[in-house]
Each structure stands twice: as C-alpha cells, then as structure tokens.
C-alpha cells in the first residue's frame, strides 16, 4: 500500500511522471502482449484512455453496461482465442463477485483486469472512500491475485507481468491503477 508518508516513492513517482506519459506506456504494453479485446465500464480516470483504444483498429473495444457483464464478455472472447482485458473502476470488483467465482475462476479464464483504484489513500474523495476501503479485502476474499502499480517503476513492464501472471495461473489478475497511470 502506498501511503502519504512514503516520501521516497512519491519523489520517484513524480520524477518518473515528469519524463514519461504513463497512459501511453500502458496502451503500448497492452498492444505488446497482444490484447485484441478490451471490455470496459467507464470511470472518469479511464475516459480518454478508452477513446484512444477506440481509435485502434487492431483492438475491439466493447463498452458494457455492467462490470459482471463485462467480465463474461471478456471470458467469452478468451474462449475464442482472443486475449482480453477488462478496464473498470474498482467498484466493478465489488459488483462482479458471482461471475468471478462461478465463471472466470471456475472455468479458469486468464483475464487481466485493470481497475482504477478510487478511494485509496491517494484518492480521498468522500464518495469513493467506501469502495477504496474494502477493495483489497474483497479481492483477498475472492482469492484473486492482485497488485498495486508501483509508481517508481515503468508501468509497461508491470502490465506485461500482470498479463503473464493471469495466463500462467489460468486465472484473472487485477492490477490497481492510480490516476497517473491511466488518466490521459
């Protein structure tokens, strides 16, 4: 967990942010690992990023109406041989529980889930905090592998490792993103 007192990490993060555009790096990493289908439910941090994805003819962007629906779409695409990624707000991790355990985990679909981490200590917005407080305990309760993006490291390699983890484990894996990682 990154906390406000982690001054070394914050300084390094700021230095890295000054020299790179992390959302561009993230998008490039998704293409490198061969993502063909992105399924999304919006969040304000993700909006412009999804517009960029929508411009790429090599990637199918599916805008779903609900995160559990989005998860099922991603699983179906993976059944068909397409590497698929979910891009959602962390609230979606709270709403997709049944599909996660009864479909994605039960049938062992390797889905990379990129979730904006709203309501974390770095995003203390009053109406996001209830979601942020329970996100990690819920992921642990679901038995889901997850990681927080480390701001002092390039994001591309972290996305590649997360995608690889999902595939090698044959299970979904969640990467929790900060605003700087994804807000275009």
């Amino acid at each position, binding site marked *: 967990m990154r906390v406000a007192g982690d001054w070394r990490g914050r300084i390094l993060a700021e230095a890295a942010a000054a020299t790179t555009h992390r959302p561009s790096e993230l998008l490039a990493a998704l293409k490198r690992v061969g993502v063909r*289908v992105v399924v999304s439910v919006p969040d304000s941090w993700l909006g412009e990023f999804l517009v960029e994805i929508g411009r790429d003819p090599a990637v199918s962007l599916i805008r779903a109406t609900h995160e559990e629906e989005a998860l099922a779409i991603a*699983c*179906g695409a993976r059944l068909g*041989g*397409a*590497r*698929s990624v979910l891009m959602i707000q962390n609230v979606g991790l709270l709403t997709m529980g049944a599909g996660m355990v009864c*479909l994605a985990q039960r*049938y062992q679909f390797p889905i990379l889930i990129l979730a904006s981490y709203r309501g974390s200590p770095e995003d203390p917005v009053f109406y996001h905090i209830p979601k942020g407080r329970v996100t990690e305990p819920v992921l642990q309760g679901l038995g889901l592998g997850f990681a927080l993006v480390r701001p002092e490291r390039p994001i591309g390699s972290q996305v590649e490792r997360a995608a690889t983890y999902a595939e090698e484990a044959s299970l979904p894996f969640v990467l929790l993103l900060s605003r700087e990682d994804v807000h275009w």
Partner: protein
Amino acid sequence: MNRAVPARRDYYRVLAECLPKEALTVTALGNASYLWAVVRDAPENFYFEDAMGLALPFALGLAVAQPERKVVVVEGDGGLLMHMGVLVSVGAVAPRNLAILLVQNGVHAASGGQPVTSPSLDLAALGRCVNLKRADNIQSTEEFRTALVSVLQEDGPSLLALATEPDVDVVAPPVVFDPVATKRRFMDAIGAQGYVPTMFGGGVLADS
C-alpha cells in the same frame, strides 16, 4: 403460459437438425445445457454449469473473437432479466454472427419453477428496440424451423424468443460437466489460441 406451445426438447430437436457443424453453441445453466448435451453433445458446445445471466454476454465475447463462425446462445427469460443490459451491448456491438435463442417459459426452471419477475414480456420487442437485426416471438416448431434457417444464413444479431412450457424436472446430462474440460475441449475444437508458458519459451498466445 399457453400449454399448447412446444417443449424445450421440441425446439432443441429442430435446432440440432438445422445447426451447421461449424456453428458454436453456448447454453445457459440447468436444462438449457443438460438437455442440449442429450440432444447434440459436441466439442463446439460450451455448457454453463451456473453463472446465471452470463451466457449471453459470454456468447457476445465469443462472437467478437470468432467472427467467421455462427455463435448460437440459448438463454432463458429469467437469465436475461438478471442482466438485461447486455441486450443493449449486443445491439451496440452488432456482431453479425450472433444468434440468440431465448427460451421463454415464464419461470426460473433451474431453481424449481418460481415465476420470473414478468413472465409475459414481449422479448422480441426488446430485441427490436436495441437495434437487433431481427427479433421474433416464436410459438411453434414450424415457425422456429423457418425462422432458424433464415437466422443461420443471414447476418445478425438476431433473437428468437421461444414460447415454451416450464421443464422443472432436471435432465441428466450424458457427459460430465467438468468446467475446465469443457473449456479445453471447445478451444481445441475451434483451434483457439492457447497460452504457451514462459518456462517453455512462450509467454505468448499461440495457435493450439
């Protein structure tokens, strides 16, 4: 519900007769899957054992990933009501290879036959208002055969709502519904890309 309407098995017999070998099927939980396994088990079948309401979005993803193959999904009216938003997604994505068969029996058959929230919805009207290419309510096997032949030949997405009587007695499937085996059998049958573990020089998706 009109008791003169066909049984699920009657519809399935027609489907089995008309379905081309290369078509892919996704069937919802309960008798939707159990009976389909009895009537026409095939590697190109993907059976849901649970995950109620998610067969249709799952089939949407499959249709996007496999655009050259017809994908036929069998969902129930109760399952659709759990995630009705997906109909909007189907209309927006508009996969021309997706055909939706909605078994409308007015009950949650898999959980013992409790009435669904609204048993008499005009499901074809729902399909039309989300811009599906075709959406019909079906009352007989003759109607179904005619509509199905067209649906399998024409571009979709399409929806056929099949009026039927509840079938709450659980059908014993002739095959083991092992989830991972079902998935692997399906992916092997269609030559879907699988993952080569990094340890063996892969780390990428490769043709199976």
